[in-house]
């Protein structure tokens, strides 16, 4: 067997697996998005072709457009905060002079091990107006005189919802930045120091440029994941108060898996979401790599 044929043979199991677990649902969802289909119709296998009707319906649905806007706000806020915190925390834990660095590295990983829905439930308890730990701690410390309705204010609910999400996903970004920092040549920093560059200058002119590739990776990955945020919405706000935390994935879920179970509409909305994420990823990569080059 030639090397080429062997390569193809070795890849077949992976290709088949990916085709089954990824490609099939993706193409089936695309197929459903062009049909009028309620969940129960899947059992009967009979649903009429409606062309682009489902797409036309969601793109004229004010609730879908609002959900998209909320998703953009959520994503912009959570990804920005995540990157800033990830760089800051990674720089701290990379500091070899601090003896607690190793313990911190382990502790930082803990939130990443928490299942998303469990994370949502934990924060729902923390945020509770009447019985939440957050209000109790702040009250005990004398920092507040009245309990705060953390996710009850429609103007701030989307940002409060981002906090548990950031708490859960931040370790991933920290790990990537930390790994990039470990791979940097220390001589670059020594040379910059000899040339009189202070810590801030070294960070701005040496560290940050070297971190750009990994920041691109974080931006692309975290943006695509933030666009599909769901569990925290389900556990903490259920889209409320009002429509303040209706995000795109919540819209798709409600249309598909709540009465009247219109999975055609749900699939179409999921596809619009996927197209937006794909387009954003291309823009990120092109814009940031152009600057690197």
């Amino acid at each position, binding site marked *: 067997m030639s090397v080429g044929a062997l390569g193809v043979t070795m890849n077949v199991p992976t290709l088949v697996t990916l085709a089954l677990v990824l490609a099939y649902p993706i193409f089936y969802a695309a197929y459903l998005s062009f049909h009028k289909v*309620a*969940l*129960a*119709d*899947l*059992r*009967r296998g009979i649903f009429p072709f409606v062309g682009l009707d489902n797409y036309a*319906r969601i793109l004229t*649905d004010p*609730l879908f457009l609002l959900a998209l806007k909320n998703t953009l706000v959520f994503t912009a806020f959570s990804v920005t905060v995540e990157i800033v915190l990830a760089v800051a925390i990674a720089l701290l834990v990379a500091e070899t002079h601090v003896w607690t660095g190793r313990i911190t590295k382990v502790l930082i990983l803990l939130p990443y091990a928490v299942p998303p829905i469990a994370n949502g439930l934990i924060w729902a308890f923390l945020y*509770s*107006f*009447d*019985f939440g730990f957050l209000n109790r701690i702040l009250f005990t410390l004398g920092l507040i005189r009245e*309990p705060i*309705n953390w996710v*009850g*204010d*429609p103007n701030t609910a989307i940002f409060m919802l981002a906090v548990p999400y950031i708490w859960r996903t931040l370790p991933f970004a920290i790990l990537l930045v930390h790994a990039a920092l470990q791979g940097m040549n220390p001589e670059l920093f020594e040379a910059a120091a000899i040339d009189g560059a202070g810590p801030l200058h070294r960070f701005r002119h040496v560290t940050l440029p070297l971190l750009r590739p990994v920041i691109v990776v974080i931006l692309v990955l975290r943006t695509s994941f933030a666009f599909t945020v769901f569990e925290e919405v389900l556990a903490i*706000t*259920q*889209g*409320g*108060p*009002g*429509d303040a935390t*209706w995000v795109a994935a919540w819209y798709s879920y*409600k249309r598909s*898996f*709540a*009465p*009247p*179970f*219109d999975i055609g509409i749900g699939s179409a909305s999921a596809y619009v979401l996927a197209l937006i994420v794909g387009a954003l990823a291309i823009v990120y990569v092109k814009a940031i790599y152009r600057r690197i080059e």
Partner: protein
Amino acid sequence: MAQRPAGWNTLGRRDLLKSFGAAAALGAVGASGRSWAAGNPWADAPVSKVDRLNFVVWTYGDIYTKISKKFTDDWGIPVDSTISSFNDHPTKLMTMFAGNETIDVSQSSPFSFPNFISQGLAEPLDGFPGAQDYLKDFTESAKQVAVYDGKLMGLPYFSTVWVWNYNSELMEKAKIQPFKTYDELLEQCRKAKKDGVCEYPIMWVAGVGLEQLPGTWYQMTWNRGGVFFDKAGNHQLGPGSIARETLKWWAQTFADQLVDPDSLKYQFTASAKAFGAGKNLYRGPNHHYGLNIANDPAQSPSAGKVQVMGSPGDGRTIGDTHVYFLCSATRNKEWAWKLLQYLGGRTKDGQYTQANNLARDAMLGSGFQSVMKSSVITDGWKPWGDPGKILEIWDKATYVGEICNSIYKPWHFPWTDRLNIEVQKALTAQITPDQCCDNLIAAIKEVQKT
């Protein structure tokens, strides 16, 4: 559209009291006077054979463990159960159905049932042995939910009526009596807040749902004499409508900061537990059986202090019945009917075992007249509340479908989504109640396109 007979208050309080004696006399032979011994439909084994059966339901204590065991003990057939939370149940059921799984029996709220029927999930029950006897024993509320297009489609799980709760200890502290008018309620709450009796006197069950926030608005609108749609299906939300004025009053309670801020998240059980903490004077109208949590010493520091009261004016309120149904995805209709009866009808011994247990263990009402007339209710509810008072309110209840008949329409769900959103926006002052109602009127046309 389901057949909608006259209000379910045709079974009066006096009728109930008169019937207690008769029911006791009939006790030995069964409520209708017939003998429920072997030979009756519920006691006969179907000719066909099955290895096992299953049901898909939402969680409620350990009632399903007990009834499954009884079925297996009586018939030697194991019963599997798939149990999810109330809000997740429609999703669980529909995804199982879509996934080609076998489902013998399931259950539904009155809000989801028309949708399940129109999607072909429920089998008509008219031809099954004993079905007509059950129908004769249904309360009006049970009939309005379980009979659809003239066909019997389900057996009752439980019935409930919407009541107010108050904390008697805080009432004493505030030196006030249960309110008689909505204006008086506002005055009392303002005074209680000013006097430092409680920071947030009212707790509403206003979390997002098919029944929670919408039900609170339905109940208060109906109590003031209004409806959401007339018999012809025309909305009743225009300027000056009772629903609109009710919303204005409701929003005022939020604007005056009289409302527990967690109200917009509360579902029925969570609110009963929170009310048990003793921080609020009143708990807004909702299912009567929350008392079995709020007055349970194991779950509530306020046990014994939570009282039930009716609504202002003539006291009219709403009620509804949840049902079990035989799923079209069953493996065997005869045996599924047998299992369905264990959940929503009679067991092999001819008793309404499940309905009786639900009354005794969970304070639930029944969709069967004979159970509602029996001492199971008057004795069973006593540990948590005043059965006489609740039955008095029961007499003034009308099925919720009379107030909002869109529940029979497929667009009711997307419209309720909008209702939850728009009303929460009105209650949090993002929009005015007038804008909310205008948006909901516009939304009717939008969702009807779906």
